[in-house]
Every structure is written in structure tokens, then in C-alpha cells.
């Protein structure tokens, strides 16, 4: 189907264009119970739906989350509807992504 998929894209290169003010030590998103990702979740949709690639499958069969590149869209929270295992709140005022153009 995807005959145009000639160039696998590195998400880091896209995120590199963006401006962030990272709130060190205060991630605004977290996984509630990592064993749910490992044992109960079949497709781990967060790992391929997050537009910033914040979620990666890990060696133990679970999911690793890194929020630094987060675009604050809310996809991970909604895609995890079945397990509701994503704790999602806005970053503290002024922190997170700062869109130059939006």
C-alpha cells in the first residue's frame, strides 16, 4: 500500500526544529502502571500513534516514555482509552512546547 514510504523519517530531526522549555524533573505525562503496558496491552498504540515518538517499546515487553519532545496534543491519553494508563496533565505554566508559528 505505502509505495511512497521510500524514506523512513527520523522524528528527532523534526523535533529539533521546535522550541521547548523543559521542566526538568517534572514530567507532565506518566504511565500509571507499567505492568499494564507489559501484560494487558496488545497493540501498544502509543508507540506508533504519538506524533513526537515519545513512546518506545522496551526490552521487557513494556513501554518507555520520554516526554521531552512532547507536542502536548493528547493523543497518548486518548489512544489508551481501553486501559486508561496514561496520566496526562498540562505542563506547569510557561513550560513545554513553545510554538513559534503554531
Amino acid at each position, binding site marked *: 500500500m505505502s509505495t511512497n514510504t521510500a524514506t523512513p523519517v527520523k522524528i528527532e530531526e523534526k523535533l529539533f526544529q521546535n522550541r521547548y522549555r523543559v521542566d526538568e524533573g517534572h514530567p507532565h505525562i506518566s504511565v500509571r502502571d507499567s505492568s499494564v503496558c507489559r501484560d494487558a496491552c496488545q497493540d501498544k498504540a502509543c508507540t506508533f500513534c504519538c506524533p513526537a515518538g515519545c513512546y518506545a517499546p522496551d526490552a521487557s515487553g513494556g513501554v518507555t516514555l520520554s516526554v521531552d519532545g512532547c507536542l502536548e496534543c493528547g493523543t497518548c491519553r486518548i489512544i489508551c*482509552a481501553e486501559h486508561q494508563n496514561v496520566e496526562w496533565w498540562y505542563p506547569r505554566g510557561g513550560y513545554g512546547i513553545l510554538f*513559534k508559528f503554531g
Partner: protein
Amino acid sequence: MSEHFDAIVVGAGPAGNAAAYTLAKGGLNVLQIERGETPGSKNVQGAILYSDALERIIPDFREDAPLERPVLEQRLWVLDEASYIGSTFRSEEFKSGPPNRYTIIRAEFDRWFSEKVREAGALVICETTVTGLLRDDAGKVIGVQTDRMGGDVYADVVVLADGVNSLVAKRAGFHGELQPKDVALAVKEVLFLAPDVIEQRFNIGEDEGVVIEMMGKITQGMIGTGFLYTNRESLTIGVGCMLSSFREGGIPPYQLLEDMKNHPAIRPLLRGAEGKEYAAHLIPEGGYKAVPQLYGEGWVMVGDAGGLVNAVHREGSNLAMTSGRLAAETIIDLKEHRRVMSARNLGEYKRRLDASFVMSDLKKYKHVPDVLHASPHLFTTYPELMSRAAKHMLHVDGADKKSKQRQISQEFREERGMLGMLTDAYKMWRALR
């Protein structure tokens, strides 16, 4: 800072700014709270501004609003893997009156709108996230909690304009979580290119803009559309699909966007352009049936927070500004008549919304989301068939046109069946009429 306000507006997007501006102009004591560093720094849109909705709030906005290009030409492309069929609407009449729509850069536009809100007399506080609502013993909303020290603030009414992730309302129990089938995920990039190159490439003048809407193979079987807009010195290119589609499709959004940029019909338009920002945003596309309760004791909800998006025509900011204005006008009227901000009295906002194009348009298309979810082939089979048909007819190879036509009609029947096509046509007609 006084501890009690007539109204608190949460969020400084088009809905929040329209509400705060109208409230302040109406003489109310308004506090507006924005979590971004500046208004607009958290906001994402395609972005097209529809002038009518803004004109009703700030009639002379064209004098100093940061507008990119008035849209003179609207193209619709249906793409398969290597080709596209397109239609174009271009009218010189668009140039004779004040333009009806513009491309904009949302971060700049929202900052400008917020300046107007300040000038109108509202107190605007940035870098502050609202964390919850304050309620009295009877459950009536009487203010907001923020992440500032001693950050509780009180008001007669709270206008929730906090966008698609309206977590404050959700936490307060006003509505449930968005569903993957009711929300689209859009990703986009802003690519810089010299204005004269843009003008040559898109066949436009210095103060003219083009919008290209795209459907077909670029969404790789998912329910969604792509878009390409010309700004003054940049292009906006993006693609949005239902979140439920992304889940089934398994293609990461950024890969989908990259593949789209590499489509042979699109790549030449982007040549030499430099990426400056990559953004993602959810769009509440559940339509009429997904609109939650929009008012209650001491609160109203406007814009994306209330799911007020017309996905069929890709209109959102005008619904946002209109709902913000109508909510504000309702609140001003209640205040003038010294009536309390109860659910019963604030219900007038919903009545005004129902009487406007906002709910009328949403109602008109209320079955569209169901039809699209039930017929994903509308996004794959038909674009492919249309493109193949055009190729057949245009390829001169000695075969006569009548047999070409016969072959095309046979291919259509084989792919969808006569009944299938009639059903599709009927369902779409029912949903769009």
C-alpha cells in the same frame, strides 16, 4: 489584583480571546488565564482565518492583524500513488471586496488578538495553568484554581476555552474523555520559502494565496485529508486522520506526513523549502452527536473545548470565535439585568448557539462521521478508480474511446459492485444534503 472578577476566561485561543474581548468591551471585569509563555505559544491550527466571524467582533481587524495571504484560489486534489485529479476554484471577484478568508500564522495572530483583549481592558495572565474549578456547597462554579502560589481566583462565571484537551471540564465531571473515533490527529510542518518562489510556483500574485485540500492515497487508507497552504514566506503542509484510523493503520503520523511530502505531485512544490517547525494537534471531529453539555451552574464552554468543529468544511476557528462571542454576549445581558449565572440563565447561550450557523452546520452533517467510519473505502477505492479512469481516457494508444469507457465502467463495477456504488452515493447524499 482584585480577588473577584465578573468573569474568568480559561485559554487565549480564538474562542477565549473572542469571549474575553467581548466581555471586556461590554464593561465587565475580566481575568483571562493562559498557560503558554505568550498567547498562541500552545496553539496549533492549519491555519485559515475566516474573516466574517472576526469582523463581527473587531470590524476593522484588517488594519493591523497579522494576516498572511488572502485566499484567492481553492484547489481540491484527489491523489493516487503517482498522479492526481484536481479541481480549482479561482475568482477575481474574491479580490473586489474585503477577502473572506486568509492564511495566518496562529502564534502571531493569537498574540495580536490577545493585545486587543488587553486594550479592551481585560487582565491577561500567561504562564499559568488552570488546575481545577472552585465550587460552592451547591456545586456552582465560583472560580478557578491555578498552579501559581495562592492561585485561587473567584468570579461570577467561568468561560472554559481551554481547547480540545478540555481537562478542567473533564476533571469537574462535565463530560467524559474524547473517543479515538471522535477526534482527528493532524501533523504539520511550516516550511520557509522565498515569497517570489511561492508566487511563481503557485501561480499567484504578491497578495494572493492558495489552499490545496487533498484526499486519496496520501492518507494510506486512513480516514482523513491533507492540506497545503501558502503563507507570505512559508508553506504549511499537513495531514490529519481520525485517531481510530491511526490506531488501525499502524503508520506513525510523522511518517505519513513525510510520505505525503514525497508524493510526485507535491514534492516539486516544496523543493528548496526549509523546515522551521513541526506541530501536532487533535481536532474534535465527532460533530453534532459528540458535543457535550455546554453550560452549567456558573460555567460555559466554547470553541474546541465544546467540540464545535465543522469537519466537513474544515472550519473551526470561526465556530470558536462565534461561540466565544455568543457566550460573552449572553453573560453581558445577564449581568445587565442583574440575573445570576445559573445553568438555567446561561442556557440562553446554547439557544443563541442553536440559532446560529454553528449548531445549524453541525446538525446538517450529524451523520457524516458515522458514514465515514462505516465506509473507509471512500478514501481509497474511489480516488484510485477516478485516477485510473482519467489515465485510461487520456492515454492515446489506438484503442477507441468507447471500449475505454466500457473498461472503466467495468473496473468500477468490479471494485465496488453496482449496488455498492449506489449505496455509497445514497449514504453520502443522505449525510451531506
